[in-house]
């Protein structure tokens, strides 16, 4: 077992890892390695065969595989080395990475900088504590998506979808177009967290009913799923007796939220934010462990891959700068979530930054005709109006470096204020 040495090691060759690699290379780093556990690069985009990706970045609508292919081609053109079918087993705070593959065995790699780009995973049934039997036919929407789009196999014929996030909506249409019958999409909250476009084009186009403020309260079937019970819930999200609707279905797809996959980050000693379940980072996407960066869905769950790429280009460039110059030290301004705001990234900004900083966050509820306000103590730095803020869409305000020059406090707060 020979140890390897690289300048930058990137974990994950999905859109985040690819963009970070491309950017690091373009910023002058030649000793670069990307590790990917799947047998192909591209990440979850490989199975997202629907279109709607790339409008911001490429000014055209691409499907997931097409979007991924552009980055894969670019990486190949730049001569970036991607080792697929390789799983990282551990990352240590001193930048030692242990990984394994069938072809190369166990490898120990030492990197000057590491970019974490492992993505996220779906919340499983256990996280919902849904009672009932443990039969076959219950899948997370992403697992079903993989079966259909990558393996060419249909999980079932009659489908109920729990959760109206975009993956659930997209799968409603996918299952329908491939010949299954989607009976209902059930959403616990009084609103969908999916895009209006997906509600119209994935549900309404196919007359699939959307049950808001409802949830699955029982699961039946000893071997294969035979049916589910759906009940309305009250304001505290408790099922209301007497509102039960029975569905005969052989498939239940769960689309109930995504969780950044930070097991490796935790092993490396990276501080995790309870609000995002991702790393606490500064404006360079550097985590609490110097030289370890994080970007994409492992940092916080995005809605648009374009934003993932954009963020990851910055993280890759920052990792390259770290390799050249080490960690930049300056006084640190903490970024806090105020009212109506959850999970602002970055959580820290160094006051001497000379680049604009995008503050990204999720509204904690639906706010109409409101403003996002960024302030430091009594000093208002930004006030930006919008007709709507919803939890389903990540919001963004850009802080210019000069705004940070003369603030009188060591923290800034982001909040939403109704007009």
């Amino acid at each position, binding site marked *: 077992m020979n140890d390897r040495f690289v300048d930058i090691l990137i974990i994950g060759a999905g859109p985040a890892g690819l963009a970070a690699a491309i950017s690091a290379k373009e910023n002058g780093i030649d000793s670069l390695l990307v590790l990917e556990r799947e047998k192909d690069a591209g990440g979850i985009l490989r199975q997202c065969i629907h279109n709607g990706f790339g409008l911001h970045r490429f000014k055209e609508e691409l499907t997931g595989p*097409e979007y991924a292919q552009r980055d894969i081609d670019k990486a190949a053109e730049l001569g970036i080395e991607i080792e697929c079918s390789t799983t990282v087993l551990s990352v240590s705070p001193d930048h030692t990475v242990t990984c394994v593959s069938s072809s190369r065995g166990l490898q120990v790699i030492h990197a000057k900088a590491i970019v974490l780009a492992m993505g996220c995973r779906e919340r499983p049934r256990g996280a919902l504590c849904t009672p009932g039997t443990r039969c076959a036919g219950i899948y997370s929407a992403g697992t079903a998506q993989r079966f259909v789009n990558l393996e060419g196999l249909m999980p079932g014929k009659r489908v109920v979808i729990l959760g109206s996030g975009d993956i659930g909506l997209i799968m409603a249409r996918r299952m329908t177009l491939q010949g299954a019958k989607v009976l209902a999409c059930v959403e616990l909250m009084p609103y969908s967290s999916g895009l209006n476009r997906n509600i119209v084009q994935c549900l309404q186009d196919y007359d699939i009913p959307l049950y808001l403020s409802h949830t699955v309260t029982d699961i039946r079937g000893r071997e294969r799923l035979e049916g589910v019970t759906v009940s309305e819930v009250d304001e505290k999200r408790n099922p209301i007796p007497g509102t039960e609707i029975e569905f005969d279905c052989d498939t239940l797809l769960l689309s109930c939220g995504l969780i950044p996959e930070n097991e490796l980050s935790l092993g490396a000693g990276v501080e995790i934010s309870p609000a995002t379940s991702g790393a606490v980072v500064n404006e360079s996407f550097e985590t609490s462990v110097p030289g370890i960066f994080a970007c994409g869905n492992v940092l916080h769950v995005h809605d648009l891959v374009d934003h993932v790429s954009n963020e990851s280009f910055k993280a890759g460039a920052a990792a390259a700068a770290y390799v050249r110059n080490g960690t930049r030290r300056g006084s640190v301004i903490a970024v806090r979530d105020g009212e109506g705001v959850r999970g602002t990234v970055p959580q820290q900004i160094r006051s001497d930054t000379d680049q604009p900083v995008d503050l990204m966050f999720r509204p904690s509820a639906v706010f109409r005709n409101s403003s996002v306000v960024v302030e430091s103590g009594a000093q208002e730095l930004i006030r930006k109006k919008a007709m709507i803020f919803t939890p389903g869409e990540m919001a963004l305000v850009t802080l210019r470096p000069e705004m940070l020059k003369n603030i009188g406090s060591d923290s800034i707060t982001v909040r939403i204020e109704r007009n």
Partner: protein
Amino acid sequence: MEQTITCINCPVGCRMTVSLSDTGEFLSVTGNTCPRGAKYAQQECTLPERMITAVIPVAGSETPLSVKTASPVPKKLISSVIDELARVQVSLPVTIGQIVLPDVLNTGVDIIATRSLS
């Protein structure tokens, strides 16, 4: 004749009411808050269009081929396009961007591969 639709351009999701003539021609729209909404309302109520994506089997490959319409096709043709896709014969290798079915249903729109398979 009036039709109510939800705008899909942004999260506001304006509820718009479209007036149409007896022959289905667009007359006016209310409820929109921006010009993009008006444009969408007109399109959606007169000639709604959709991109279609799907996977189709490929002889000799366990992995299916993902395909799309090269541009949107009339919404009412969705199920006919899917029927056409069920009949397409594709063989290896396939290159991303390759036309697997030209001019589907005389729409002038090609069905193209969105990935490569070999």
